[in-house]
């Protein structure tokens, strides 16, 4: 229970369904400043909702694990010129890693969260992860790493509802989180934004901005300010619209080019995983960002081939593969 409306309603729905529910809020970050996703106010909201539902509530301090598994890799990835998705790593290592293990050790049957996605039984003890009913809020993308072991023990009750339904349900129950705004940003980055966060943690190493022929167009203060596909704040004045097409962290070289130079026919993935074995059909759709449009694709080995050329996927981003609204698997773009 993050203290937001989705997990509040998830707890309420499970209780209505007759489950014996226990609420948990994770303290992941904050230390002395106690800001961001695990602020005292958010914990208090979660605690009050749990009290209103009459269920026990605990706060688990997983700050060490979060730092090791999410924040430090996030910094390292950016230092390498990549574009990591820390929410995905948190789901993998913390929520559906440490928390799922802990819930199992304590004898709980299921772990439920407020994610907008659906766990569907496909018979014979197998499970499928489907997009949430509210397409605009679907979060199956950030859960692409869940395998059969995790899905068998996971419940995502709000995936059956639209966000409007969720808020209506919360309002009907009089939950204090009913009208709380959504959090959109990376929880451990608060004041100053991503660049300031990284500037404090990655030694700045200036380098050059070049075009695709290798001609120098200007200089930059460090590669962490750039993402493949970025077209604003390139620090270089050119006549036409330009995009970052490559980042070489070894030489601190940022290459920019036109939109055609950004196009790729494929993306190679590392750490490819499948929800329930490799897909048999060839007709898949790839999603390359949290709320991106599905792109008709096929999978050859660990390479996703697009039916039509697409802007290059920034290394470090998740590519999730779908068959209809069923998640097939995914990996990290290289």
């Amino acid at each position: 229970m993050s203290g937001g409306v989705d997990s509040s309603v998830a707890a309420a729905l499970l209780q209505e369904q007759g489950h014996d529910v226990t609420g948990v809020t994770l303290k992941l970050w904050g230390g002395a400043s106690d800001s961001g996703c695990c602020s005292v106010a958010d914990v208090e909201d979660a605690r009050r909702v749990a009290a209103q539902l009459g269920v026990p509530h605990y706060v688990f301090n997983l700050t060490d694990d979060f730092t090791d598994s999410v924040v430090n890799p996030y910094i390292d990835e950016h230092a390498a010129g990549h574009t990591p998705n820390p929410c995905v790593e948190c789901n993998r290592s913390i929520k559906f890693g440490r928390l799922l293990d802990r819930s199992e050790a304590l004898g709980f049957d299921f772990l439920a969260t407020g994610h907008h996605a659906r766990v569907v039984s496909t018979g014979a003890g197998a499970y499928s992860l489907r997009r949430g009913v509210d397409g605009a809020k679907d979060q199956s993308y950030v859960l692409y790493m869940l395998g059969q072991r995790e899905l068998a023990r996971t419940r995502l009750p709000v995936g059956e509802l639209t966000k409007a339904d969720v808020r209506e349900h919360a309002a009907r129950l009089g939950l204090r989180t009913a009208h709380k705004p959504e959090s959109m940003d990376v929880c451990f980055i608060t004041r100053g934004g991503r660049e300031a966060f990284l500037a404090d943690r990655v030694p700045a190493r200036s380098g050059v901005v070049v075009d695709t022929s290798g001609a120098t167009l200007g200089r930059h203060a460090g590669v962490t300010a750039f993402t493949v596909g970025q077209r604003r704040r390139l620090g270089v004045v050119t006549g036409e619209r330009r995009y970052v097409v490559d980042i070489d962290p070894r030489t601190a070289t940022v290459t920019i080019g036109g939109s055609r130079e950004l196009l790729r026919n494929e993306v190679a993935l590392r750490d490819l995983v499948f929800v329930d074995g490799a897909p048999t059909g060839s007709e898949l759709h790839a999603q390359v960002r949290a709320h991106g449009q599905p792109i008709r694709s096929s999978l050859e080995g660990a390479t996703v081939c697009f039916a039509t050329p697409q802007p290059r996927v920034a290394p470090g981003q998740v590519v999730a593969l779908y068959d209809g609204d069923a998640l097939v698997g995914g990996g990290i773009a290289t």
Partner: protein
Amino acid sequence: MYLDHAATTPMRPEAVAAMEPFLRGTFGNPSGGHAVARAAKTALEEAREEIAELLGARPAEVVFTAGGTEADNLAVKGAARHARVTGVGDGVVTTAFEHKGVLASCDRLAAEGFRIATVALPASGVVDVDALMAAVDDRTALVSVMLVNNEVGTIQPLEEIVARVRDRAPQALVHTDAVQAVPWLDVARATSTADLVAISAHKFGGPKGTGALVVRDRAAPEPLIEGGGQERGLRSGTSNVAGAVAMAAALRATGSARDADSARLALLRNRLVDGLLAAVPDAFENGDRAQKVAGNAHVGFQGVEAETLLVALDRAGICAAAGSSCSSGATEPSHVLAAMGIARVDALTSIRLSLGFASTDVDIDAALTAIPDAVAQLRHAGAAA
């Protein structure tokens, strides 16, 4: 089954009875001049006299506060700031396992330019007085050492510390956080030579939000809260009459029962710890039991995270604790165990079981069943994962 008396105790019936008239009828502001005010003033001053007597102080030396943390803040920040104003010194010497009320005050003083020396402890949990004294010098303004540690329950050699500070640095004041000592020690005797002594009512059967600081002659701390000049100008604000009266009643009841309670609870505590160490493989005890108060048990179970174990115990009806609670309710790794040089992995697998006047054989029996069961279950799950 409540085994968290070091966090807070249930109220003693004597304290509830004592405060009730001041919640229902006698509502006056003791600072006023009329009959209603006088009744409250009389009760407040009678409570002060009683507390003074039980703490071995004069009534004028007892300053009511809103608890132990405030008393520690007033003592540490107030005394240090006064010493700087008078030119006595700018050094504060304390231990690394003090309550946060002392440590955070020292952090504040450090930011104000004071020299803070924080002395680490041995694994016994009893301060090495030689190491402490090595940090004391001619410009030391204050030495602050708790009488009993809140996590591991160890008793500190306060009389020896005071004597040696007087000898080495006669200008320095000595403060002791005696918050955890009241149920177990004759605080009047143990703190008779200290200049500043902090207590908190809810640790010995009184209400929350009420405490006191004994401020002896030599000490003249700068106030933290200013206003109407109550409490000799050391703590402005309308007096908590009901709290003071209840604290006095709780202190009296605690003193009367102390010797019998301590003897009885030491036996229960020993049965609990020895039972756990015998029943659970790879269990260990933190702090030197021979130097602890009777109510403290602090044990660890290798490979079992305290945070998980506490949830399992809560579900089994056993209330225990680990580390110290932060404002969000998450358990922070114990700074006390770290100060004692205990490895982080051991600290994160250790829990505190603290007994109090309400503890009985039934609690211990339940704990001796539930804890080994929970540890076994969590170890089994951990091995399977």
